[in-house]
Protein backbone atom coordinates (compact mmCIF):
# COMPACT_ATOMS: atom_id res chain seq x y z
CA UNK A 1 0.00 0.00 0.00
CA UNK A 2 1.21 3.42 -0.88
CA UNK A 3 2.01 5.33 2.30
CA UNK A 4 0.22 8.37 3.68
CA UNK A 5 -2.88 7.98 1.55
CA UNK A 6 -5.82 9.79 3.07
CA UNK A 7 -9.04 10.76 1.29
CA UNK A 8 -10.72 14.07 2.13
CA UNK A 9 -14.14 15.20 0.97
CA UNK A 10 -16.16 18.37 1.44
CA UNK A 11 -19.91 18.12 0.86
CA UNK A 12 -22.58 20.50 2.21
CA UNK A 13 -24.57 18.85 5.02
CA UNK A 14 -27.89 19.99 3.60
CA UNK A 15 -29.25 20.96 0.18
CA UNK A 16 -32.59 21.88 -1.37
CA UNK A 17 -34.19 19.10 -3.44
CA UNK A 18 -32.94 19.41 -7.01
CA UNK A 19 -30.19 21.83 -6.03
CA UNK A 20 -26.76 21.57 -7.66
CA UNK A 21 -24.08 21.48 -4.97
CA UNK A 22 -20.32 21.76 -5.27
CA UNK A 23 -18.34 18.78 -4.08
CA UNK A 24 -14.62 19.01 -3.41
CA UNK A 25 -12.41 15.95 -3.05
CA UNK A 26 -8.74 15.50 -2.42
CA UNK A 27 -6.66 12.42 -1.77
CA UNK A 28 -3.12 12.63 -0.49
CA UNK A 29 -1.08 10.40 -2.80
CA UNK A 30 2.39 10.77 -4.24
CA UNK A 31 1.25 10.03 -7.84
CA UNK A 32 4.61 8.66 -8.98
CA UNK A 33 4.50 9.02 -12.75
CA UNK A 34 6.83 6.16 -13.72
CA UNK A 35 8.94 8.61 -15.73
CA UNK A 36 11.36 9.57 -13.00
CA UNK A 37 14.64 7.90 -12.06
CA UNK A 38 16.26 7.52 -8.65
CA UNK A 39 19.87 8.45 -7.80
CA UNK A 40 21.19 5.17 -9.24
CA UNK A 41 19.40 5.76 -12.52
CA UNK A 42 16.73 3.11 -12.02
CA UNK A 43 13.22 3.95 -13.08
CA UNK A 44 10.92 4.56 -10.11
CA UNK A 45 7.88 2.37 -10.82
CA UNK A 46 4.60 4.07 -11.62
CA UNK A 47 2.23 4.31 -8.68
CA UNK A 48 -0.82 6.50 -9.19
CA UNK A 49 -4.51 6.70 -8.46
CA UNK A 50 -5.91 5.62 -11.83
CA UNK A 51 -9.64 5.98 -11.28
CA UNK A 52 -11.99 8.03 -9.18
CA UNK A 53 -15.74 7.52 -8.91
CA UNK A 54 -18.61 9.16 -7.08
CA UNK A 55 -22.01 7.57 -6.59
CA UNK A 56 -25.18 8.97 -5.10
CA UNK A 57 -27.54 6.35 -3.64
CA UNK A 58 -25.95 3.78 -5.94
CA UNK A 59 -26.24 5.90 -9.07
CA UNK A 60 -23.07 7.01 -10.83
CA UNK A 61 -22.36 10.76 -10.60
CA UNK A 62 -18.88 10.90 -12.03
CA UNK A 63 -16.27 8.36 -13.16
CA UNK A 64 -12.83 9.75 -13.85
CA UNK A 65 -9.76 8.14 -15.40
CA UNK A 66 -6.56 9.65 -14.00
CA UNK A 67 -3.32 9.66 -15.96
CA UNK A 68 0.33 9.75 -14.85
CA UNK A 69 0.76 13.46 -15.62
CA UNK A 70 -1.56 14.40 -12.75
CA UNK A 71 0.23 16.00 -9.80
CA UNK A 72 0.67 14.84 -6.24
CA UNK A 73 -2.48 14.90 -4.10
CA UNK A 74 -5.12 14.94 -6.86
CA UNK A 75 -7.90 17.44 -6.23
CA UNK A 76 -11.21 16.95 -8.01
CA UNK A 77 -14.08 19.41 -7.77
CA UNK A 78 -17.45 18.95 -9.46
CA UNK A 79 -21.12 19.86 -9.18
CA UNK A 80 -23.83 17.31 -8.50
CA UNK A 81 -27.60 17.62 -8.35
CA UNK A 82 -29.23 16.31 -5.18
CA UNK A 83 -32.73 14.97 -6.01
CA UNK A 84 -33.38 13.51 -2.56
CA UNK A 85 -31.72 12.90 0.78
CA UNK A 86 -29.02 10.28 0.54
CA UNK A 87 -25.37 9.42 0.58
CA UNK A 88 -22.48 10.25 -1.72
CA UNK A 89 -19.93 7.47 -1.94
CA UNK A 90 -16.44 8.30 -3.16
CA UNK A 91 -13.94 5.69 -4.32
CA UNK A 92 -10.33 5.98 -5.43
CA UNK A 93 -8.51 3.09 -7.17
CA UNK A 94 -4.75 2.73 -6.70
CA UNK A 95 -2.38 1.14 -9.24
CA UNK A 96 -1.35 -1.39 -6.59
CA UNK A 97 -4.91 -2.66 -6.30
CA UNK A 98 -5.83 -0.80 -3.15
CA UNK A 99 -9.21 0.89 -3.03
CA UNK A 100 -9.88 3.84 -0.74
CA UNK A 101 -13.39 5.02 -0.06
CA UNK A 102 -15.34 7.42 2.04
CA UNK A 103 -18.97 8.56 2.17
CA UNK A 104 -20.92 11.68 3.08
CA UNK A 105 -24.63 12.04 3.84
CA UNK A 106 -26.70 14.93 2.53
CA UNK A 107 -30.03 15.90 4.06
CA UNK A 108 -32.78 17.87 2.36
CA UNK A 109 -33.58 21.11 4.10
Amino acid sequence: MASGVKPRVKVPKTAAAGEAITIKTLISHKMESGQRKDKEGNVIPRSIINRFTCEFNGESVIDVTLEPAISTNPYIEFDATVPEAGEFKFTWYDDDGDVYDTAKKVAIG
Partner: protein
Amino acid sequence: MKFKAMTAIAALVISAPFMASAEADDDELIVNDEITMVTKTAAPAHLADDVDEIISGWHFRSDETQIMQADDFDNPGMIFVEQAMDDWNTVMGSKDKSCASCHGDVEESMVGVRTVYPKWNDAKETVYTMEMQINDCLTDGMGAEAWKKSGSKMARMEALISVQSRGMPMNVAIDGPAEATWEEGKELYYTRTGQLDLSCASCHEENYGNRIRSDHLSQGQTNGFPVYRLKNAKLTTAHGRFKGCVRDTRAETYNPGSPEFIALELYVASRGNGLSVEAPSVRN
Protein backbone atom coordinates in the same frame (compact mmCIF):
# COMPACT_ATOMS: atom_id res chain seq x y z
CA MET B 1 -5.78 51.32 -38.66
CA LYS B 2 -8.16 48.64 -37.57
CA PHE B 3 -5.27 46.32 -36.91
CA LYS B 4 -3.52 48.92 -34.77
CA ALA B 5 -6.66 49.56 -32.76
CA MET B 6 -7.06 45.85 -32.14
CA THR B 7 -3.48 45.48 -30.92
CA ALA B 8 -3.90 48.45 -28.66
CA ILE B 9 -6.99 46.88 -27.12
CA ALA B 10 -5.23 43.55 -26.80
CA ALA B 11 -2.27 45.23 -25.11
CA LEU B 12 -4.61 46.90 -22.65
CA VAL B 13 -6.37 43.67 -21.84
CA ILE B 14 -3.08 41.91 -21.25
CA SER B 15 -1.40 44.66 -19.28
CA ALA B 16 -4.26 45.40 -16.91
CA PRO B 17 -4.13 42.08 -15.00
CA PHE B 18 -0.35 42.26 -15.02
CA MET B 19 -0.35 45.59 -13.26
CA ALA B 20 -3.00 44.48 -10.83
CA SER B 21 -1.06 41.43 -9.76
CA ALA B 22 2.37 43.02 -9.39
CA GLU B 23 1.28 45.61 -6.87
CA ALA B 24 -0.10 44.71 -3.48
CA ASP B 25 -3.88 44.57 -3.91
CA ASP B 26 -6.63 45.59 -1.48
CA ASP B 27 -8.32 42.22 -1.05
CA GLU B 28 -9.29 40.98 2.39
CA LEU B 29 -8.28 37.59 3.72
CA ILE B 30 -10.86 35.75 5.81
CA VAL B 31 -10.04 32.10 6.40
CA ASN B 32 -12.94 29.62 6.65
CA ASP B 33 -15.34 32.60 6.94
CA GLU B 34 -14.09 32.88 10.53
CA ILE B 35 -10.59 34.24 10.95
CA THR B 36 -10.07 37.77 9.64
CA MET B 37 -6.39 38.26 8.95
CA VAL B 38 -4.47 41.48 9.42
CA THR B 39 -2.53 41.48 6.17
CA LYS B 40 -1.60 45.17 6.11
CA THR B 41 -0.77 47.33 9.06
CA ALA B 42 1.52 50.11 10.24
CA ALA B 43 5.18 49.16 10.42
CA PRO B 44 6.58 48.40 13.88
CA ALA B 45 8.50 51.26 15.51
CA HIS B 46 11.99 49.92 14.73
CA LEU B 47 11.13 49.85 11.03
CA ALA B 48 9.18 53.10 10.78
CA ASP B 49 12.06 55.05 9.18
CA ASP B 50 12.35 52.61 6.28
CA VAL B 51 8.85 51.27 5.63
CA ASP B 52 5.44 52.86 6.29
CA GLU B 53 3.21 49.85 5.94
CA ILE B 54 3.95 46.17 6.35
CA ILE B 55 2.16 43.92 3.88
CA SER B 56 1.69 40.18 3.89
CA GLY B 57 3.02 38.30 0.87
CA TRP B 58 -0.57 37.19 0.31
CA HIS B 59 -1.36 40.55 -1.29
CA PHE B 60 1.26 40.06 -3.98
CA ARG B 61 -0.20 36.81 -5.28
CA SER B 62 -2.84 36.27 -7.95
CA ASP B 63 -6.51 35.94 -7.01
CA GLU B 64 -6.44 32.22 -7.78
CA THR B 65 -3.61 31.64 -5.32
CA GLN B 66 -5.18 33.93 -2.73
CA ILE B 67 -8.46 32.02 -2.78
CA MET B 68 -6.70 28.74 -2.02
CA GLN B 69 -5.64 30.12 1.33
CA ALA B 70 -9.12 31.29 2.30
CA ASP B 71 -10.47 27.78 2.87
CA ASP B 72 -8.73 24.96 4.69
CA PHE B 73 -10.02 22.38 2.25
CA ASP B 74 -8.56 24.25 -0.69
CA ASN B 75 -5.29 24.93 1.12
CA PRO B 76 -2.92 22.08 0.23
CA GLY B 77 -0.77 22.98 3.22
CA MET B 78 -3.45 21.58 5.50
CA ILE B 79 -2.67 18.05 4.31
CA PHE B 80 0.70 18.40 5.98
CA VAL B 81 -0.92 19.79 9.11
CA GLU B 82 -3.06 16.64 9.27
CA GLN B 83 0.02 14.47 8.88
CA ALA B 84 1.73 16.36 11.68
CA MET B 85 -1.32 15.74 13.85
CA ASP B 86 -0.61 12.02 13.44
CA ASP B 87 3.03 12.65 14.41
CA TRP B 88 1.85 14.63 17.44
CA ASN B 89 0.05 11.57 18.79
CA THR B 90 2.72 9.03 17.81
CA VAL B 91 4.91 7.60 20.55
CA MET B 92 8.56 8.08 19.59
CA GLY B 93 11.92 7.39 21.25
CA SER B 94 13.17 5.50 24.27
CA LYS B 95 10.93 7.22 26.81
CA ASP B 96 7.68 6.00 25.22
CA LYS B 97 6.27 9.46 24.87
CA SER B 98 4.43 11.34 22.17
CA CYS B 99 4.18 15.12 21.90
CA ALA B 100 0.70 14.74 23.37
CA SER B 101 2.05 12.97 26.49
CA CYS B 102 3.44 16.27 27.76
CA HIS B 103 1.58 18.90 25.77
CA GLY B 104 -1.90 17.35 25.58
CA ASP B 105 -4.23 18.76 22.99
CA VAL B 106 -2.24 20.76 20.45
CA GLU B 107 -5.25 22.98 19.84
CA GLU B 108 -5.04 24.19 23.41
CA SER B 109 -1.42 23.96 24.46
CA MET B 110 0.12 25.57 21.36
CA VAL B 111 -2.14 28.61 21.01
CA GLY B 112 -0.04 31.74 20.58
CA VAL B 113 3.28 29.90 20.49
CA ARG B 114 4.03 30.81 16.89
CA THR B 115 3.65 34.55 17.50
CA VAL B 116 6.64 34.84 19.84
CA TYR B 117 9.22 32.63 18.09
CA PRO B 118 12.16 32.96 17.65
CA LYS B 119 12.62 33.88 21.29
CA TRP B 120 15.25 33.98 24.00
CA ASN B 121 15.70 30.70 25.88
CA ASP B 122 16.82 31.43 29.43
CA ALA B 123 18.16 27.96 30.20
CA LYS B 124 20.20 27.65 27.00
CA GLU B 125 21.14 31.34 26.95
CA THR B 126 20.55 31.75 23.27
CA VAL B 127 17.79 32.65 20.84
CA TYR B 128 15.65 29.62 20.10
CA THR B 129 13.68 28.93 16.95
CA MET B 130 10.61 26.74 17.11
CA GLU B 131 12.62 24.13 15.26
CA MET B 132 15.29 24.02 17.99
CA GLN B 133 12.60 23.67 20.64
CA ILE B 134 10.98 20.77 18.74
CA ASN B 135 14.31 19.01 18.41
CA ASP B 136 15.05 19.52 22.12
CA CYS B 137 11.72 17.91 22.92
CA LEU B 138 12.54 14.98 20.66
CA THR B 139 16.04 14.33 21.96
CA ASP B 140 15.84 15.33 25.63
CA GLY B 141 12.18 14.90 26.39
CA MET B 142 11.39 11.80 24.35
CA GLY B 143 14.74 10.11 23.82
CA ALA B 144 14.17 10.15 20.08
CA GLU B 145 16.38 11.24 17.22
CA ALA B 146 16.30 14.88 16.18
CA TRP B 147 14.56 15.67 12.92
CA LYS B 148 16.39 17.11 9.96
CA LYS B 149 16.54 20.90 10.09
CA SER B 150 13.96 22.34 7.71
CA GLY B 151 13.10 18.78 6.62
CA SER B 152 9.59 17.70 5.73
CA LYS B 153 8.72 16.31 9.19
CA MET B 154 9.99 19.45 10.85
CA ALA B 155 8.14 21.73 8.43
CA ARG B 156 4.82 20.04 8.97
CA MET B 157 5.15 20.01 12.76
CA GLU B 158 5.94 23.73 12.63
CA ALA B 159 2.84 24.14 10.48
CA LEU B 160 0.68 22.25 12.98
CA ILE B 161 1.92 24.40 15.85
CA SER B 162 1.63 27.61 13.82
CA VAL B 163 -1.94 26.89 12.75
CA GLN B 164 -3.03 27.16 16.39
CA SER B 165 -2.01 30.83 16.33
CA ARG B 166 -3.70 31.73 13.05
CA GLY B 167 -5.07 35.24 13.07
CA MET B 168 -3.03 36.28 16.10
CA PRO B 169 -0.53 39.10 15.57
CA MET B 170 3.18 38.33 15.29
CA ASN B 171 4.94 39.70 18.33
CA VAL B 172 8.58 38.65 18.68
CA ALA B 173 10.66 40.37 21.35
CA ILE B 174 13.66 42.30 20.05
CA ASP B 175 14.88 43.88 23.26
CA GLY B 176 16.42 42.36 26.37
CA PRO B 177 18.73 39.38 25.92
CA ALA B 178 17.61 38.80 22.31
CA GLU B 179 18.78 42.23 21.20
CA ALA B 180 22.33 41.23 20.23
CA THR B 181 21.04 38.44 18.01
CA TRP B 182 18.47 40.79 16.52
CA GLU B 183 21.24 43.27 15.65
CA GLU B 184 23.18 40.48 13.93
CA GLY B 185 20.11 39.63 11.93
CA LYS B 186 19.63 43.24 10.94
CA GLU B 187 23.26 43.43 9.83
CA LEU B 188 22.74 40.37 7.63
CA TYR B 189 19.52 41.77 6.19
CA TYR B 190 21.32 44.83 4.86
CA THR B 191 24.51 43.03 3.78
CA ARG B 192 24.89 42.48 0.05
CA THR B 193 25.97 38.99 -0.97
CA GLY B 194 26.84 37.04 -4.07
CA GLN B 195 27.82 37.85 -7.63
CA LEU B 196 24.60 39.80 -8.03
CA ASP B 197 25.51 41.91 -5.00
CA LEU B 198 22.03 41.92 -3.50
CA SER B 199 20.96 42.25 0.11
CA CYS B 200 17.57 41.19 1.44
CA ALA B 201 16.68 44.90 1.46
CA SER B 202 17.56 45.34 -2.24
CA CYS B 203 14.52 43.30 -3.20
CA HIS B 204 12.19 43.20 -0.21
CA GLU B 205 12.51 46.75 1.12
CA GLU B 206 13.44 48.86 -1.91
CA ASN B 207 11.58 46.96 -4.61
CA TYR B 208 8.57 45.14 -3.23
CA GLY B 209 5.66 45.38 -5.62
CA ASN B 210 8.04 45.37 -8.58
CA ARG B 211 8.89 42.37 -10.70
CA ILE B 212 11.98 40.25 -10.67
CA ARG B 213 11.93 38.45 -13.97
CA SER B 214 8.46 36.85 -14.02
CA ASP B 215 7.85 36.93 -10.30
CA HIS B 216 6.51 39.60 -7.97
CA LEU B 217 8.62 40.80 -5.12
CA SER B 218 6.90 40.81 -1.75
CA GLN B 219 8.18 42.34 1.45
CA GLY B 220 9.57 38.96 2.39
CA GLN B 221 7.42 38.67 5.50
CA THR B 222 7.58 35.40 7.44
CA ASN B 223 4.12 35.46 9.05
CA GLY B 224 2.91 32.83 6.57
CA PHE B 225 5.71 30.30 7.17
CA PRO B 226 5.88 27.37 6.82
CA VAL B 227 4.43 28.13 3.41
CA TYR B 228 2.96 25.73 0.86
CA ARG B 229 4.62 26.54 -2.44
CA LEU B 230 2.82 25.62 -5.62
CA LYS B 231 6.12 25.30 -7.47
CA ASN B 232 7.28 22.27 -5.48
CA ALA B 233 4.01 21.14 -3.90
CA LYS B 234 5.32 20.99 -0.35
CA LEU B 235 5.92 23.08 2.73
CA THR B 236 8.91 25.40 2.82
CA THR B 237 10.37 26.71 6.08
CA ALA B 238 11.73 30.21 6.59
CA HIS B 239 15.30 28.89 6.59
CA GLY B 240 14.63 26.96 3.40
CA ARG B 241 13.39 30.18 1.79
CA PHE B 242 16.36 32.16 3.10
CA LYS B 243 18.67 29.60 1.54
CA GLY B 244 16.87 29.94 -1.79
CA CYS B 245 17.09 33.72 -1.67
CA VAL B 246 20.79 33.81 -0.82
CA ARG B 247 21.46 31.24 -3.54
CA ASP B 248 19.61 33.46 -5.99
CA THR B 249 22.10 36.23 -5.29
CA ARG B 250 24.66 33.66 -6.51
CA ALA B 251 26.34 33.37 -3.14
CA GLU B 252 27.35 30.38 -1.07
CA THR B 253 24.49 30.14 1.41
CA TYR B 254 24.34 29.59 5.12
CA ASN B 255 22.73 26.34 6.18
CA PRO B 256 19.24 25.95 7.63
CA GLY B 257 19.62 26.03 11.40
CA SER B 258 22.88 28.02 11.27
CA PRO B 259 23.40 30.90 13.75
CA GLU B 260 23.22 33.36 10.86
CA PHE B 261 19.79 32.17 9.73
CA ILE B 262 18.51 32.07 13.32
CA ALA B 263 19.49 35.73 13.72
CA LEU B 264 17.98 36.57 10.34
CA GLU B 265 14.77 34.72 11.20
CA LEU B 266 14.40 36.80 14.37
CA TYR B 267 15.05 40.04 12.55
CA VAL B 268 12.74 39.29 9.62
CA ALA B 269 10.01 38.11 11.99
CA SER B 270 10.31 41.41 13.87
CA ARG B 271 9.72 43.30 10.61
CA GLY B 272 6.34 41.60 10.52
CA ASN B 273 5.31 42.31 14.10
CA GLY B 274 1.61 43.14 13.87
CA LEU B 275 0.73 40.95 10.88
CA SER B 276 -1.47 37.92 11.54
CA VAL B 277 0.05 34.46 11.60
CA GLU B 278 -1.12 32.90 8.33
CA ALA B 279 0.69 29.57 8.33
CA PRO B 280 0.41 27.46 6.33
CA SER B 281 0.06 30.12 3.67
CA VAL B 282 -0.12 29.40 -0.06
CA ARG B 283 2.37 31.06 -2.39
CA ASN B 284 3.76 30.33 -5.83
